[in-house]
């Protein structure tokens, strides 16, 4: 009996050694993906793709490459990534929004080191241009979303007002809604929370010919146009046209109010229809361009996230590692994978090859893709972006408390450019 047991153990040991020997030749890529919605985790690691998942399908299609893929919530991803970098354990591939700090620290690989030419040429050039520092592309876009104004059609009909296109019309519409509904409906939604206060900033400054930077790409946070724009936004709050707590009510709170018929107009992402359906709201809504100041050119806000690859000098075969990262991207952006993912998350694609597939499946996508063409993006390629992003939110929140917008923006400009 003992001999049989010893034999079995020896065989098992040998088999496991062979297994390890085979596994040693594999490349394992650490991948961090942000959680965009309820289905992200299931799609990547569960049973979301016809009973299988992205990791399984990738590993089956690419023998010798293993994925150690982790889906991390947006709330935690910055903590996870910076802790891993501090501990010398950066992921191989990261999906996140910002990249400038990683690039300027010399942590990233240039995209041309791992991305195939065919795939590279498939990205919208205007998207790729957002990830360039000193002429080098450090990340590729994984998706985009565009913002639009949604309005409650039934309310507009009941009150008898037209969809506002300018700020003056917007104020008139808000007053008409207040007059008609009293305090039962908020005419306008504002989110100046730490979640997305920077988006609120862009909705107003870009629609007053202002912006984060000037024509030369230098920070211009305290421009007259910006001061006027933020004063206008704060004025809407002070006149009682908005939700009562813009500093703590997030985009999702506003979407819930809009869905429940408590809010007449809200600026939010192209994902709103998916959100309303999932939450069971049945509001009759329309979409329109963001209102702008009289005489100013309107500007749509686009938001883009990215995929980037970190250096790992300890890896013995850099060429093999780069090739593995390239294969990951090729597989992820292949039409059958990518269109499924973008549709599931309700976002807009970043590669042109996906457009025809998506428009065929849902013709309403076409209109959003047109909006994307005219979108302005945050200046995330500038290394001070994190300070600016948090800074404009602080300015907004202090302005809500009665602070002087000009003084606050002057202070931020000084802090960022010193």
């Amino acid at each position, binding site marked *: 009996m003992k001999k049989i047991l010893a034999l079995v153990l020896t065989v098992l040991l040998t088999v496991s050694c062979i297994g390890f020997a085979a596994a040693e030749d594999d490349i394992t890529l650490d991948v961090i993906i942000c959680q965009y919605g309820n289905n992200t985790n299931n799609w990547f690691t569960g049973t979301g793709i016809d009973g299988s998942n992205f990791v399984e399908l990738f590993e089956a299609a690419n023998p010798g490459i293993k994925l150690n893929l982790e889906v991390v919530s947006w709330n935690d991803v*910055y903590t996870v990534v910076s802790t891993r*970098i*501090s501990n010398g354990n950066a992921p191989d591939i990261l999906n996140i929004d910002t990249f400038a*700090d990683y690039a300027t620290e010399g*942590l990233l690989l240039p995209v041309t080191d791992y991305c195939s030419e065919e795939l590279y040429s498939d990205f919208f050039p205007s998207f790729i241009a957002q990830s360039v520092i000193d002429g080098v592309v450090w990340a590729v876009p994984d998706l985009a979303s565009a913002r639009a104004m949604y309005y409650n059609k039934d309310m507009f009909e009941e009150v008898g007002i037209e969809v506002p296109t300018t700020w003056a019309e917007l104020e008139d519409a808000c007053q008409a809604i207040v007059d008609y509904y009293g305090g039962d409906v908020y005419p306008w939604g504002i989110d100046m929370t*730490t979640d997305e206060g920077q988006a609120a900033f862009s909705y107003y400054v870009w629609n007053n010919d202002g912006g984060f930077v000037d024509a030369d790409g230098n920070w211009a946070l305290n421009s007259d146009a910006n001061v006027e724009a933020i004063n206008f936004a704060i004025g809407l709050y002070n006149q009682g046209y908005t939700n009562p707590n813009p500093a703590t009510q997030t985009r999702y709170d506003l979407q819930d109010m809009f869905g429940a018929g408590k809010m007449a107009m809200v600026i939010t992402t192209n994902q709103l229809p998916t959100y309303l359906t999932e939450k069971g709201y049945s509001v009759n809504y329309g979409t329109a361009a963001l209102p702008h100041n009289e005489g100013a050119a309107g500007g749509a806000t686009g938001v883009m996230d990215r995929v980037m690859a970190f250096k790992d000098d300890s890896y013995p075969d850099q060429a093999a590692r780069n090739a593995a990262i390239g294969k990951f991207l090729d597989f992820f952006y292949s039409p059958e994978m990518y269109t499924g993912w973008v549709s599931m998350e309700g976002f807009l694609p970043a590669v042109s090859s996906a457009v025809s597939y998506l428009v065929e499946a849902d013709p309403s996508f076409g209109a959003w893709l047109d909006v994307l063409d005219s979108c302005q993006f945050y200046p995330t390629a500038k290394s001070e972006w994190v300070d600016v992003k948090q800074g404009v939110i602080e300015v907004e929140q202090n302005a*809500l*408390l009665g602070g002087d917008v000009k003084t606050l923006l002057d202070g931020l400009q000084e802090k960022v450019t010193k």
Partner: protein
Amino acid sequence: MNSILMRRKWEPYLWLLPSMLLMTIFIVFPIFIVFKLSFSEISKAGVVGSFVGLANFKAAVTDDVFGTVMLNTLLWVVSVVGISTLLGFIVAMMMNSKFHGRKIARSIVVFPWATSLVIQASIWNYIIKFEYGNLNNILLNLGIIQDAVNWRISYHIEFMWECGVGIFVTVPFVAFCVLAGLQSIDGAYYEAATVDGAGAWKKLTHVTLPLVRPALMVSTVLNIIYVFNSFPIIYTITKGAPANKTDTMVTYLYMLAFYDQEKGPATALSVIGFILLCAVAGLYMMISIKKDER
């Protein structure tokens, strides 16, 4: 014989070894790392650079919002610990008296403490919502109010709500600490006090309070540490907004580290917090040692 003596000498250390090892790995080592980081330059990407002396501490304490945050932290700790100690004592006295359903009452009282803080804070967030909060719904349905009330009309009020939730979840802990103290009091003390003609007030101040003082002391010191370090309530309800006006030290340093990516000043702040809490714990130990000596 010698081997038995040797074994007796080393055995306690052997038994202590696993917990000492765990404490070293999970407490002492991270503390050492944080101290080291607080004197280092840390980039926004998280790369740890060279020694920068007290620069991180200077940056942290000279920031405009540092004063507000420290004042909030003081208000938060004093109000939550103070009020919950008072209310917890009253609840413990009630639970110590005999009445029908006492066991059920004790089980109910423990719920707020036993539930996760994030869940508690989220529930309260829904209760006080202006648009469709439970509090407004109930008051409207009962006809007590005619129009919905904005229970979060200013950040002062929001901070008071946060303190209120802190008190709500802390009271049970105090109550059960005090209850344990009350149950250990020999009934003979009260009989003797009654014979001496003491009334209810005198029994409370001359018998009950002195005898439950050790339990109150333990709960107060532990609460100061727990409440000072408490993160979920404020983070869930306001995230320190607007403009850090409702931040305490712990939520502020988190936002500083992971939203503003200012990890150097954030680690410096955590070192300051650690030193403050060490002072509280040291005070408690000094009092305990003095009492033992007496």
